């Protein structure tokens, strides 16, 4: 038999069709025992190849085919050979003790420890991996589950509308009871998965915004996005003019084409503006379209280098519930979470470019991101919760976290 280690692969050797390979693999994978000896196996494959009709025009081609069959056979024998190896008795005892001791070498009998250490080395090599984790795999997994849920919901809706067979009232009632029971168990789970998928997408938006902020400040002498030289008497009037709306400052990222509307649309906001942006627009049309609240910009703007502790400055967050309630003249609860994620918490993008998820708007030594510090202090004294924000307040200083519409 020719030693294939010394022979380079012959590019002119006959090639099997995919069908032939499939047939070959079936013979060996599905019923390897049917060939008693190596020679029988060789003949089996050889006959099969002949039957399949790959033409053999010369003796040399016939020989190369025999070589091919022998190589295949030997490979298969080789795979079996690995399984035939046994551990020495001492190694078996060392492995058993190593497993029994919770995969620790320390508890193994002294004389067996060097062998157990070898088992441990194998364990470490197998369980550690240089391969990097996939940053988006969690998101893709949640999306896969969401797709499944959506498909199930669609199928359920379709089934409900279908007729064509007769049922008795008793059947109907029991089916209805079962459906109610199933729905009561599965719907909370489904809604939980959906909100997780939305949250993941929203976190992706924060990352996109961070990139946009980075690019903007990089080409604007470290200045954060501003639409005008400064805000006028109010900043709460979304969709009016840039000097009356803080969100027009954020919209600068879209006008500069560093972000698009979709990047700044939280999937849990049903009214979020998405799709192509109007090239002449300066702002979102209304507070309802807005998904994120941007740090209130002081007159003259703000440089990223002006904050002594960038990690404490909140640049962007899921939209403020306080502003929504003020505008709608509803009772304000300062400690309320953003409505974007069913009130469970909010994403925040910090000035150092990192983002975080918090389950309370109160961060950094009792600093509420929805309010400027003077009002926080007032609330702590008065706990007056109605009509607190006028829409003209400014952050007390660089370390006062305070975001607006």
């Amino acid at each position: 038999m020719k030693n294939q280690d010394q022979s380079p692969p012959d590019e002119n050797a006959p090639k099997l069709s995919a069908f032939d390979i499939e047939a070959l693999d079936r013979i060996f994978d599905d019923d390897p025992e049917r060939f008693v000896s190596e020679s029988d196996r060789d003949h089996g494959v050889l006959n099969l190849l002949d039957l399949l009709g790959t033409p053999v025009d010369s003796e040399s081609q016939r020989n190369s085919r025999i070589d091919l069959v022998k190589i295949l056979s030997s490979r298969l024998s080789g795979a079996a050979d690995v399984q035939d190896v046994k551990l020495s008795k001492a190694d078996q005892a060392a492995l058993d003790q190593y497993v029994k001791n919770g995969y620790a070498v320390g508890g193994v009998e002294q004389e067996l420890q060097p062998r157990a250490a070898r088992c441990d080395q194998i364990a470490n090599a197998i369980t550690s991996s240089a391969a990097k984790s996939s940053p988006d795999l969690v998101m893709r997994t949640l999306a896969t589950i969401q797709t499944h849920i959506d498909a199930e919901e669609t199928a359920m809706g379709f089934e409900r509308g279908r007729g064509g067979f007769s049922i008795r009232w008793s059947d109907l009632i029991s089916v209805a009871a079962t459906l109610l029971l199933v729905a009561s168990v599965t719907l909370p789970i489904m809604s939980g998965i959906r909100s997780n998928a939305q949250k993941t997408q929203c976190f992706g938006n924060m990352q996109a915004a961070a990139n946009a902020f980075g690019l903007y400040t990089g080409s604007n002498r470290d200045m954060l996005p501003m639409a005008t030289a400064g805000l006028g008497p109010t900043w709460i009037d979304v969709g009016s003019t840039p000097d009356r709306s803080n969100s027009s400052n954020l919209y600068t990222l879209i006008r500069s084409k560093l972000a698009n509307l979709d990047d700044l649309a939280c999937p849990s906001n049903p009214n979020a503006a998405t799709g192509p942006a109007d090239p002449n627009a300066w702002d979102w049309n209304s507070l309802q379209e807005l998904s994120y609240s941007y740090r209130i910009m002081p007159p003259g703007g703000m440089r990223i280098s002006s904050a002594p502790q960038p990690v404490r400055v909140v640049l962007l967050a899921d939209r403020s519930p306080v502003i929504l309630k003020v505008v709608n003249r509803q009772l304000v609860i300062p400690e309320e979470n953003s409505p974007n994620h069913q009130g469970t918490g909010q994403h925040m993008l910090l000035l150092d470019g990192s983002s975080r998820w918090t389950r309370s708007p109160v961060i950094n030594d009792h600093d509420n991101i929805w309010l400027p510090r003077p009002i926080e202090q007032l609330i702590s004294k008065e706990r007056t919760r109605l009509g607190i924000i006028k829409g003209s307040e400014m952050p007390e200083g660089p370390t006062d976290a305070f975001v607006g519409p």
Partner: protein
Amino acid sequence: MGQAELSKWDSQSDEQVFESFRKDDPDAYRELIERHHDDLLRFLTRMVGDRAAAEDIFQETFLQVHISAATFDTSRRFRPWLFTIAANKARDMLRKKNRRKTVELSAPIRKSESGASFIDLLEVDVPPPDEAMDLGERDEQVQRALDQLGPALREVLLLAYFQRMSYAQIAEDLGIPLGTVKSRMHSAVAAFARSWQTVSKDHTQNDTNQDE
């Protein structure tokens, strides 16, 4: 950019988080996926020898967990359940893939010996510790060595080492007798050591050939 998670889950067990998920806590499922992401992905990659396929099975596994959530007995441990589902999915995938298995003709042929041979771990090389070898290179060689093992041996070896389970736990999980687990584990470690020898020898030979 990192996400500094202020997590309420830190002090909670997998089983507690899973129970929260079943009670509709919207963060719990993501927490479970993130918690097992690294280990499960490594386990699956080792099992099927293909990163892209491992990621597909990873997603299928968590989808299956979601579908079967209502049936999970919370008096049992979550992680073995998760890994058993993942191992089943990987086994299915390998079964399909094996029908189209490609044989590596360039690898050396080992002639069958009469009967089983014994291996002594003190006399053979095993994968060296992290600092002694380039990690990427070692990773690749470990995978090639694992690929030489049959699925049954590979599965028991990976379940044991990744989950640090006792023989009895593995037997219960796989539904096979304790004695079979023990002998499979012995065979698996021996087969891996033998396979590693071949793979590392090939690697050394290739390096020598390239140098020439």
